[in-house]
């Protein structure tokens, strides 16, 4: 009886667990359906999908735990027995028997004993399975369509139109052959002039860049990036070299100031006239060699001091910087010690910040001084040797001074090479500006430039556009938005286009040579051709005496050359001469006058376009 009751109780647990499962099972299915639909329709990312899957696993775990808890929960004590009683119609005999049997026999009343006996006899065949059926809950039926729904959603394919981004198009930077030829020739010229390896390397890089553009291997963005990089490298190198040399020269100059024999050289060094400094040093060496003009002992002593001082200037400066750096380091350590481990406090301390700034500045000064010392190392060595030999043998000292002069010459050459670098830098910036503006005008502008360059080379413009008429503009057929070429003043006899009161018609329709007539009275109306006839200069018959350039007054006039160039192209020696004259004036004006940098480009670009062609 007890076993039957226990089995019935166990079946009750099964039933409870099954009921809980039936109640909760739709939840994971619904979740799975919604999550699958969301993943398929919304196209969530991998992270969101992972979260949804984790959520599903969590939900399944929750359901499993809930079902397990339902199974573990013990039913009320006599639940199984009562159900058996009910199933077998025992009117509570079984439960009563089981409960009363727990009382020790001695304590049982006769009626209790009778009840147990009655129960035992009545409960012969007990059927826990029948008493506690464990049917599949009706709610489980929901799980089947839900499972079907999940499978259907899983199998359902949503066709999404994936937009495949077009492959990145490479649009090479296209410069006109004319421009490429210009920059290529510039690089060639600069390479021929270059004297030091640094300049040559920079020119090579520039030339490679131009070649790459010519081969259409670069797009606009990349070309600009490489130009900017080259610009920055060249600018930095130039600045560093200049500063180092000037620092070294200042040190040498201040040392040589101490002696009257080297004062001229010191002055030249100070004013950066290296050729003069070289010359002054050579003269000093000559004087030391010559016995007739031998300096006095006092002069020689001062000279020795001066040369020693000059040779030590760079190293002394370095030592001073190093000493100051050590002081600042010690100060920094002391300040940081004061703050202990409080890193934030140290960061916010103005004294620490000031110290850090000074150290950084000193570090820059040190690097500069080291560069200056390297730059002046040979000159310093020669001056030191010369000072040492001054007491022993003047001849040897003079030789060392001459070698020092040689080194100054090297420095002068190097300074010259800086000019090449500056020139290269300027060309680089021009090219950069051309590239930058290249995209602004569009294809029409490109065509115009191409046509212009063809005409500039003496070829006829084509491509369907009307060629410009000679004389209408200096550069025919091109709408150039650059600074216009200086106008050639009208010569007398060409006829003014402006009418004047009392002078009907004003302009002489007959052309050159006609005298303006004075009216006897005020004019009542005006000539239909108010502007007069177009100017028709008789080439070869007139002589231009005023032009916006320098006219020597000899040979063919500048205006004639320019007119000729407009028709035949920018070729020929006369045009080259006129161009050089004009460009020289323009360059001088650019150097001297306050012209905004943006406008300078227009001027330079203009001259690039009208430069003489081979």
């Amino acid at each position, binding site marked *: 009886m007890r076993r039957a009751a226990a089995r019935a109780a166990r079946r009750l647990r099964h039933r409870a667990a099954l009921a809980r499962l039936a109640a909760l099972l739709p939840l994971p299915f619904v979740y799975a359906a919604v999550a699958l639909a969301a993943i398929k329709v919304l196209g969530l990312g991998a992270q969101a999908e992972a979260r949804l899957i984790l959520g599903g696993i969590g939900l399944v775990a929750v359901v499993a735990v809930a079902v397990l808890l339902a199974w573990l929960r013990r*039913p*009320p*004590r*006599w*639940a199984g027995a*009562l159900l058996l*009683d*009910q199933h077998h119609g025992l*009117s*509570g*005999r079984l*439960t*009563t028997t089981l*409960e*009363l049997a727990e009382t020790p026999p001695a304590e049982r*009343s*006769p*009626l*209790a*004993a*009778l*009840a147990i*006996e*009655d129960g035992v006899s009545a409960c012969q065949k007990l059927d826990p399975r029948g008493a506690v059926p464990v049917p599949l809950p009706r709610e489980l039926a929901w799980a089947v369509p839900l499972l079907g729904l999940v499978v259907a959603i899983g199998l359902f394919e949503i066709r999404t139109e994936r937009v495949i981004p077009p492959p990145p198009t490479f649009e090479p930077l296209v410069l006109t052959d004319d421009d490429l030829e210009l920059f290529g020739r510039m690089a060639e010229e600069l390479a021929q002039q270059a004297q030091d390896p640094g300049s040559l390397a920079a020119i090579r890089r520039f030339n490679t860049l131009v070649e790459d553009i010519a081969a259409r291997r670069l797009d606009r963005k990349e070309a600009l990036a490489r130009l900017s990089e080259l610009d920055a490298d060249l600018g930095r190198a130039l600045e560093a070299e200049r500063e180092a040399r000037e620092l070294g020269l200042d040190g040498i100059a201040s040392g040589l100031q101490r002696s009257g024999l080297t004062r001229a050289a010191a002055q030249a060094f100070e004013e950066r006239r290296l050729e003069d400094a070289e010359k002054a040093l050579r003269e000093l060496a000559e004087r030391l060699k010559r016995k007739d003009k031998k300096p006095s002992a006092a002069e020689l002593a001062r000279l020795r001091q001066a040369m020693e001082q000059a040779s030590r200037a760079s190293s002394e400066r370095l030592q001073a910087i190093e000493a100051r750096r050590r002081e600042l380091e010690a100060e920094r350590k002391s300040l940081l010690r004061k703050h202990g481990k409080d890193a934030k406090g140290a960061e916010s301390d103005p004294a620490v910040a000031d110290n850090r700034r000074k150290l950084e500045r000193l570090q820059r000064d040190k690097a500069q001084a080291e560069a200056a010392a390297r730059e002046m190392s040979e000159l310093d060595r020669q001056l030191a040797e010369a000072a040492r030999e001054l007491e022993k043998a003047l001849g040897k000292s003079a030789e060392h001074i001459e070698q020092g002069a040689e080194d100054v010459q090297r420095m002068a050459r190097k300074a010259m090479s800086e000019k090449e670098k500056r020139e290269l830098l300027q060309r680089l910036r021009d090219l950069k500006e051309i590239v930058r503006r290249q995209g602004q005008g569009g294809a029409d502008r490109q065509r115009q430039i191409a046509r212009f360059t063809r005409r500039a080379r003496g070829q006829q413009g084509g491509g369907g556009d009307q060629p410009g008429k000679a004389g209408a503009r200096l550069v025919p057929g091109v709408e150039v938005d650059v600074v216009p070429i200086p106008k050639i003043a009208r010569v007398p006899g060409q006829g003014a286009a402006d009418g004047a009161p009392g002078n009907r018609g004003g302009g002489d329709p007959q052309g050159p040579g006609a005298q303006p007539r004075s009216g006897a009275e005020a004019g009542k109306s005006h000539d239909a051709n108010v502007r007069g006839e177009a100017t028709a200069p008789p080439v070869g018959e007139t002589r231009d005496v005023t032009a916006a350039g320098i006219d020597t007054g000899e040979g063919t006039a500048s205006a004639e050359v320019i007119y000729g160039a407009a028709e035949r192209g920018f070729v020929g020696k006369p045009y080259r001469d006129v161009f050089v004259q004009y460009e020289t004036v323009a360059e001088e004006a650019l150097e001297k006058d306050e012209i905004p940098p943006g406008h300078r480009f227009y001027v330079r670009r203009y001259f690039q376009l009208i430069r003489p062609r081979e």
Partner: protein
Amino acid sequence: MGETERVREEVETFQRRIGALREEIGRVIVGQRAVLDGVLTCMLAGSHALLEGVPGLGKTMLVRTLAGALGLEFSRIQFTPDLMPADIIGTVVLEQSAEGRNVFEFRRGPVFANVVLADEINRATPKTQSALLEAMQEHRVTVGRTTHALPEPYLVLATQNPLEMEGTYPLPEAQLDRFFFKLEVPFPSREELHAILERTTSDQRVEVRPVLTREDVLAMQDLVRRVPAPRHVQDYAIRVLQATHPNGEGAPRSVTRYVRTGASPRGVQAMLLGAKVRALYEGRFAASIDDVRATAKPALRHRLLLSFEGEAEGVRPDTLIGDILDAVPAAKD
């Protein structure tokens, strides 16, 4: 003979006697088995019953027959509005003794009988109704300074008409609580009515013979008290009682809504004692949950005080008890 066997024989005797009693009463009363069993249960539990039914259903006849079959003294009190407490309890009267002296003598009222029929109890004033309180609860009455014991077994069977409310005095809750069961006397079925007609409109004269003695009844009452009620049965009865209270544990929604006050502990006593009697009726030796369920309605229906809403909606207490029995699980920890 062992104790167990003796008790077994007692139980068998109990069943034989009950059978004989039913048979004897059945010779006069047609049908009304449930009412008869309820009345017998009340008697065997040593308590009282309230019978409610329309006039003419044989309530008085049932009680009278029962008293006759039991061989017990029977009295009938017809409650009227002018009935005074002394009319039912008795009164002291001045009498002349044999010696010729005037003495006060207590004249016992109709409550001094083994079976008292309080007919149409709700027609008397509350004062008179209350006069029955001590008699029903204590089985004794006090007049002046003298307490008079009532004969044992003592059974009050009160009747009331549920239809005629004019000029009636509904029983106070305290008095209602003293009735063990409230039994509703149903209208007879057609077959029963045929039998009633046969018996009452012919020349048949049925005389009821006493089948039990006063001692038999007392022995049966003693046996009932000895029937064991297992703990789980008591627990079930208690949980049913708790569920009759609007705020009680396990109370169904209808109870919360329509009941003002639930049953008193006398309710659970009535259920359990009734269950014991029922177990003996069925030849079992211990009360069961089924017995408690069977006695719940007569034991609780007069102990539920309905709320205004319940009264207004005409909710029947039996419906509420049915809800309670449905709601309370047989087993609970």
